[in-house]
């Protein structure tokens, strides 16, 4: 395939030029997905830890649903958020549709279950180890939750990164609720979809390569920070 060669040189050319349009799109992608990941983590990690810690009626059903939601198609989330934010929908008055905020909302809904479900697995293993000791020391449930989250922070990074990966790579939801509006809601993935529909396959693939590199960079950065911290003695 000559397309691959063309795509790689296109990707290099794009990065070399780094025109304003491209950097705008890249920055928006990062902004939207990082915001979504931060918000989803603040919601999802405590939920995951709480599920590991507490027994309550309906817990099993909750976990099953949560696990199922990990695989929810982004398009479905996009549609739901569209219906909610549409002028004809319940939150229409806020006029959020086709803004980056709408995209962040959709991505938060998309990845919170993923982060919570992965966090639950990590936290459950940890709680198995900690439970007796913490109870012996006289912990309150809230303190136990905090200890689990803090001590599991490195393992939890994996859950958070999985969320980031799903968010930044997803096109279905942001396309519907963002609308792929030039200079406003156009991100990497919707740009790629647009270029494919124009038949600019090399350009689309070039953008794809940049997206992959970006994803690798973010993952690498987190991994690096994590490694440094470990050596820093807070294992």
């Amino acid at each position, binding site marked *: 395939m000559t397309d691959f060669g063309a795509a790689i040189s296109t990707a290099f050319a794009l990065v070399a030029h780094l025109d304003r349009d491209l950097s705008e799109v890249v920055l928006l992608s990062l902004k939207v997905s990082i915001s979504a990941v931060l918000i989803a983590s603040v919601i999802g990690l405590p939920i995951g830890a709480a599920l590991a810690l507490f027994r309550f009626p309906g817990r099993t059903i909750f976990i099953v649903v949560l696990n199922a939601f990990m695989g929810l198609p982004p398009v479905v989330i996009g549609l739901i958020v569209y219906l909610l934010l549409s002028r004809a929908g319940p939150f229409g008055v806020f006029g959020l549709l086709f803004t980056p905020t709408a995209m962040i909302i959709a991505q938060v809904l998309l990845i919170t279950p993923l982060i919570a479900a992965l966090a639950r697995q990590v936290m459950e293993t940890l709680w198995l180890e900690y439970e007796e000791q913490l109870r012996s020391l006289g912990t309150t449930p809230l303190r136990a939750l905090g200890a689990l989250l803090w001590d599991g922070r490195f393992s939890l990074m994996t859950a958070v990164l999985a969320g980031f990966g799903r968010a930044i790579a997803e096109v279905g939801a942001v396309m519907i609720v963002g609308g792929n509006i030039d200079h406003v809601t156009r991100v990497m993935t919707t740009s790629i979809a647009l270029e494919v529909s124009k038949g600019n396959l090399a350009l689309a693939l070039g953008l794809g390569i940049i997206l992959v590199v970006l994803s690798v960079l973010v993952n690498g950065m987190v991994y690096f920070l994590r490694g440094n911290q470990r050596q820093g*003695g*807070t294992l």
Partner: protein
Amino acid sequence: MIQADAPTILPLELKDVSLQAGQHRLIKDVSCTLDAKDVTIIIGPNGAGKSLLLRLCHGLLTPSAGAIHWHGANGRDPSLYQAMVFQRPVMLRRSVRANIDFALSLRKVPRRLRHNLIEEALHRAGLNRFAKTPARVLSFGEQQRLALARSWALRPQILFLDEPTASIDPAATHVIEEVIMAMRKEGTKIVMCTHDLGQARRLADEVIFLHRGRILEKSGAAEFFAGPKNDLAQAFLRGELLWWHRRELTPP
């Protein structure tokens, strides 16, 4: 924060305490009283229920029947005056110092008092130079010493130990026994289970012999090791493998 000179919550009385898991009664009608002083060692073969009995006393397990009573508590929460060291030390993924600090903060010890308590506990356990080391890179024996130091810092009136030296070499065991005895000297009641008879001889003031969920004998250490009244306890001291004779050797 617990006052060091607070009146003791002991004695601890167990009244017809049973623990049932499914069909099995694991602890059967145990009644006994533990006094404020000295070292009580619980011995007995594997599966006798030693660990369960400790957990029942400590409050980690709730008895299916019977009652556990802290006679000296007088309305205070007895759990605040206890600590426990487990067979496998459980260390948080933090520094040695932070592990002790965490325990103190759970007991609501004011931050300004913690420093000295931590320093002293580390000193007693000989862990000063590891203060900033991540707890989980310590060796097994060192971690167990840290578990003891963590308990020490809490200044418990009673300390439960569940076979703390079961997987530790003799040198490390020696250090741990020294720390335990030092705590005893400071007035902490020690309740420890072990199946190391040598250790029981070295530490015990009082021995409880547990077999298949029942207390078969409870007597002073000198008396017990001189010649237990119970025939199963005699067999155990001789080193016989009790679990081979389940049918023949029914308790009186």
